[in-house]
Each structure stands twice: as C-alpha cells, then as structure tokens.
C-alpha cells in the first residue's frame, strides 16, 4: 500500500491507543481497588507498547521495537507482577479515602486534560504521527501527578509515578520521531525498574517499622 494511506492508518492507530491510555488513566483515578489499579496500569503500558510497535512498524525504525519489547517485559509483566506480589504479601486491597472524592477528581482531571491540550496546541505542527499525542502525553503527566497526591497508599503512589512515566514515554515515542536514542531508552527503562525496586525495598522497610503503608502516617519530620 502507498505511503499516504500508511501514515493515515498509523496516525489513526496511534491516536486510538493514546486515547485508550487516557481512558485507563481516568479509570485509574477513580478506581480504588489496588489490584485493579495494577491491572489498569498494565493495560495502559500495553497500549504504550502498541504505540511504540506502530511507530516501529510504519516507520521501520527497528530500535523502537526494542522499546516496545522492553515496555511489555517491564511495565506490562514484571512491574505489575512485583507490585501484585507486594500487595498480596501486605494483604491490603483497598485504597483508603483519597484526598478528593471521585466526582471532584474527575472534574479536576477534566480541567487538567483541557490544560494539557491548551499547552500542547502550539506544537501540533511538530506532530507527524497522529495529532494530539502530545496533548495526551501532557494530560497523562498532569493527571498522574494529581493521582499521586490524591492517594495515600505507598503502592498507589508508585503506580501514579509509573503512570507519569508512561506519559513521558508516550511523548518520547510519538513526539520525537522514532523515540529517543537507544542509549537513552535503555537508560530510562533501567532506571524505572531500579526505581521501582528501590521503592519496593522502602515500602517493605516502612511496613516493617510502621506496620502500615499509609504514607500520610509519615509526618514526624516537621518544621
């Protein structure tokens, strides 16, 4: 098939996946079951991998395949499994009452999405793959950020952090053509994994000495 249609298809695919990621993000915001949150995150990462795959396929940039594979290995399989294990070991399944209740958070996320698109608007010219991926990425970052201070459980905060990471990666893959240089991609992936492991260690130690994972209990250091 000719290039025109291929770009057509690719951009549609990418837009679709990005939108999906956004949807999962919003679900993540309202959902309070920890295990479900982890699943949602896994699905979001899968969509990210899909975006990467699309880019790799249609613009035959082979090294982006590596990104896709790494994403699947790391963010779709390994990290969810790790967190899942943590959660089961700790045996807490419910997130406690977040800072803002569901409707308010949804409203806020709507606002953030709007902001994301406003910020991203001037750069549509730069987007060759599907329009508004930058907007989506921006929104993912902002809402992930919101999710982070809206929740109290250590695990959810880690998830939120990873969601922000996803947003960044989306931007990396879709905005800057063909993803970043390979070194950087590897570095980022490696960092994310190590970060989560370190966080895991800390969560474990915190549970040891606080016998709870409620980070709002961590407020002895004042002034």
């Amino acid at each position, binding site marked *: 098939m000719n290039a025109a249609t291929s770009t057509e298809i690719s951009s549609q695919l990418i837009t679709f996946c990005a939108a999906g990621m956004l949807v999962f993000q919003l679900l993540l915001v309202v959902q309070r079951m920890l295990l479900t949150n982890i699943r949602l995150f896994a699905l979001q990462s899968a969509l990210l991998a899909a975006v990467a795959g699309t880019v790799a396929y249609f613009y035959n940039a082979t090294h982006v395949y590596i990104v896709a594979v790494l994403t699947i290995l790391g963010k779709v399989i390994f990290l969810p499994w790790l967190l899942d294990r943590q959660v089961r070991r700790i045996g807490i399944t419910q997130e406690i009452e977040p800072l803002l209740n569901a409707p308010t958070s949804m409203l806020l996320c709507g606002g953030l999405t709007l902001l994301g698109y406003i910020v991203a608007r001037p750069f549509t010219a730069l987007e060759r793959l599907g329009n508004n991926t930058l907007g989506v990425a921006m929104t993912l970052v902002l809402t992930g950020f919101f999710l982070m201070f809206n929740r109290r459980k250590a695990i959810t905060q880690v998830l939120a952090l990873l969601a922000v990471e996803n947003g960044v990666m989306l931007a990396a893959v879709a905005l800057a053509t063909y993803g970043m240089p390979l070194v950087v991609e590897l570095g980022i992936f490696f960092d994310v994994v190590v*970060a989560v492991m370190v966080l895991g260690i800390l969560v474990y130690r915190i549970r040891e000495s606080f016998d709870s994972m409620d980070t709002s209990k961590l407020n002895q250091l004042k002034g």
Partner: protein
Amino acid sequence: MSLLAPILLVPLVAGLACLLVPSRRVMAGLSVLAFGLLLALGIALIDQVLERGVVTEWGEFLYADALSAWMVLVISVVSLASAIYAAGYLRRDLADGAVTERRFREFYVLTPLFAAGMFLVVLANNLGVMWFAVEATALSSVLLVALYNRRTSLEAAWKYIILGSLGLALALFGTVFVYAAAVGPHASDKLPSFNWSRLMTVAPQFDHGLIKLAFVFAFIGYGTKAGLAPMHTWLPDAHSEAPSPTSAMLSGVSLKIALYALLRFHILTTACLGTPFSQHLLLGFGLLSMCVAAPFILVQTNVKRLFAYHSLEHVGIMCVGFGLAAPLAVFGAVLHMGYHALVKSAIFFAAGNIHQKYHCLELPSLGEGLLQTMPASSTLLALAVIAIAGLPPFGIFLTEFSIVAGGMQAGHPLACGLFVAALLTVFSGLLSHVAHLLLGTAERQPGGPSTPISCVAAMALLIAVLAVFSIWLPKPLLQLITQAASIIRGIP
C-alpha cells in the same frame, strides 16, 4: 592519556570491590584511596581542559569542559573528605550499634556508586544520559538516607525518593521536548545525535515555544532535585536524617549536581531564545528559596535541619548569581559552589561529631558550652560558621559580595536589596543559635569516648583548604572558573 573514563570507572570498581572485601578496615581504606586517586585525576583533568578547552572520550560520549572539570574537582574533594570522615564515624556507629554489619557494607558500596553517578552527570555529553545519571544518584543516595533505618530516616527517604523521582520524571519530559526540538519539524530517517556539543551549535534554530516548555519542565524537575523552593520540602528531612558523611555529600555536592543539570538547560535555553526567560526564573526562584529558608532558620531547633535549610538558602544564592547573569555575579556563583561545598560538608561533619557525643541534635537539649565539652570540633565548627555566614577573610564574603556587585551592574538594585536582607536574616538566626550552642558553661559533661581523630581531621582538612583558597586562587583554578563562568553566560 584519557582521564574521563577512569574518573567514571574508579568509583564503580571501588564500590563493587567493597561488595567482596571481607574486612571493614579494607573497605574504609579502599574508599579513601579511590577518592584520593579521583582527586588526583580531577586535578589532572583541569590541566587537560585548560589545554584543549574541551575533552571528549568514547566517541563523544563523555564530554568535559571547564564547568564539568570544576564540578569534578568539587565532587572529588568533598567525597575524599567524607570518606576520611566516614572511616572514624561509621566505626563509632557500629560500636554504638547504630548500624549493622550489613548496613555498614551497604554504605561503602553505595557511596562510591553515588559518586560515580555524580561524575557521570557532569561528564555526560548526551542530555538523556545526564538525566539517567541524575536519577542514578537519587536512587543510590536514597538507601544511604535510610541507612539508620529509624522511622524518621525511612520517612525522609520515602519523601526524598517520591518527590525526587517525580521531579525527575518531569525533567525527563523536558529532555524529551529538547530532543523533539533537536529533531525539528522535518524528520529525516537518520537519527540526530543528542549530544551537548552538537545541540549548542544548532540551538538557535530550535522551536522557541518547545524550548520554553522544555525548560519549564526541566526547571521543575531538576529544581526539585536541587532543592529550590517550593520544591525543596524533601531537603531538610533527607539531609538531617542521613548519616553525616552522606549529609555532607548531599548538601555539599549533590545539590550542585542537580544545579549543574539545570544550568545546562539554562545555557541551552538562553542560547536558543536569546531572551532572559530562564534567567528570570532562576533569579525569582533563587530569591524565593532564600526568603523561604530565612524564617525556618530563625526558629529552628535541630542542628542538622538548621544547616539543611541553610543549604537551601545557599542554593538560592547560587541561582540568584546565575540568574543575574552579570559577569561578576556568575563568577561569584561558580566560585560559591566550591566554597559552599567545602564549608557545608565541614559543618555536617561537626554536626555528626556532636550527635555521636550527645546522641541528640535538638538545640534545647544540647544546652550550651560545647566549646568546653568538645573543643576541637567546636572551634572548627565556629570557623566554618564564620565562613558560611560570609565574614571575611573567608571567601564566601567575596563571592556573595561579587554576586551583589554583579546584580548592581545588571541593574537589579531591588533584587540585591532582597538578597542582602535575606542574608542578614539568616545570619541573625545562625549567629544566635550557634552562639548559644558553643558559648557559655556546659551543664552536663556527656560520657562516651572522645571524637575519633579522623572525624576531626576531615573537618580540619576542609577548613584549611577553604582558608587557603579564600586568600589565594591559583592561576589555573582562576582560569578554570572564569572559563566556566563564561560558558554559563553562553560565551563559548
């Protein structure tokens, strides 16, 4: 001969070696040795840089200009001092049962890795790699912060890692934007390199809006790591809860490493936009940090937190210096990096000695008259405080003075007024706290063995170095700093 690669490898090797060696003495000796070697390499690097201007290795993967060389020097000096200090300090901690064998080893493995990360930050040519290195320093230092495994230290570590990695995620976002700008609208199949050396050459063609956006994210991200208000909130916790050698490295260098990353973006942005956009951000947030630090210092009750906030203030000072962008100011700020690294580490060492003697750091319970109970450390602490308070003959007076002078040159009298006012407030707080801590008659004579010799030696070393370089800046060093300043001001 190649220097950059060894500078990266030596600490890595040392760290990994510490995983294997059995004896504690060997570990301590090894790290001191490694950092001593690094110092030598750093000094050698200065010559090379002054000679060639820019040193690159591994096919442009590693890159060192005057600024990097200066940072390398600062890192290696402080790390050496803290290695010397740690030798006595951790032995004492082990004896007190503050740390276990395992944690002891952990310290000696992680500290060199931490250092290695910092070296990579300043030597990386690729902005993405630089980001990766910063994240690495964060991850390696987190476990050091949590070393004592107290509730408070875990809390501090948690806040540090969460805020830190969030910030770094944002920084990555900014990096991505820069890359996108580098790629430019017309995509070619050939991947453009993401190397600093190349970016600077093509900076002016970048998309302005994108670079602005990039700088905002990078500013928030690296600013968080550099402890700029209002992203500084992790800083007092982490710095006060970490073991003193680590606090010294955190306050002394790692803040400046993040600042270095920020500066790279600042240079890029200014080169691209040609407007003082980034300067204004630096100036504003610098002043904000100083003003935020001041009240916390006035009413602080914990010695280490006191000096942690003081570091916040000094980060602010440097940012103001860079933001004013006048030759004098930038020169002062660059020099300030070095002086502050020396003094602040010495101060945290003193805090560590106090803690090991009194087993607490709360000013009220410490009481007064430390000059009597621990004369050596107290005298050195007094000297360090004189220096950090910006009193002559120590160099910080010179740097702060020239920053203000630069501000006047650049025509920001109000900013200068605010700057001086913040300095005065901080001075008042610092002086009243320290005077009441050191002077007077001690009610209780704390027991326990006297401070290990190495703990005092490290302080003395730093203060001596400071004193010497306050009144005498050797030609090459001066040249280096001037070059670094001109790099920051975007004059290659």
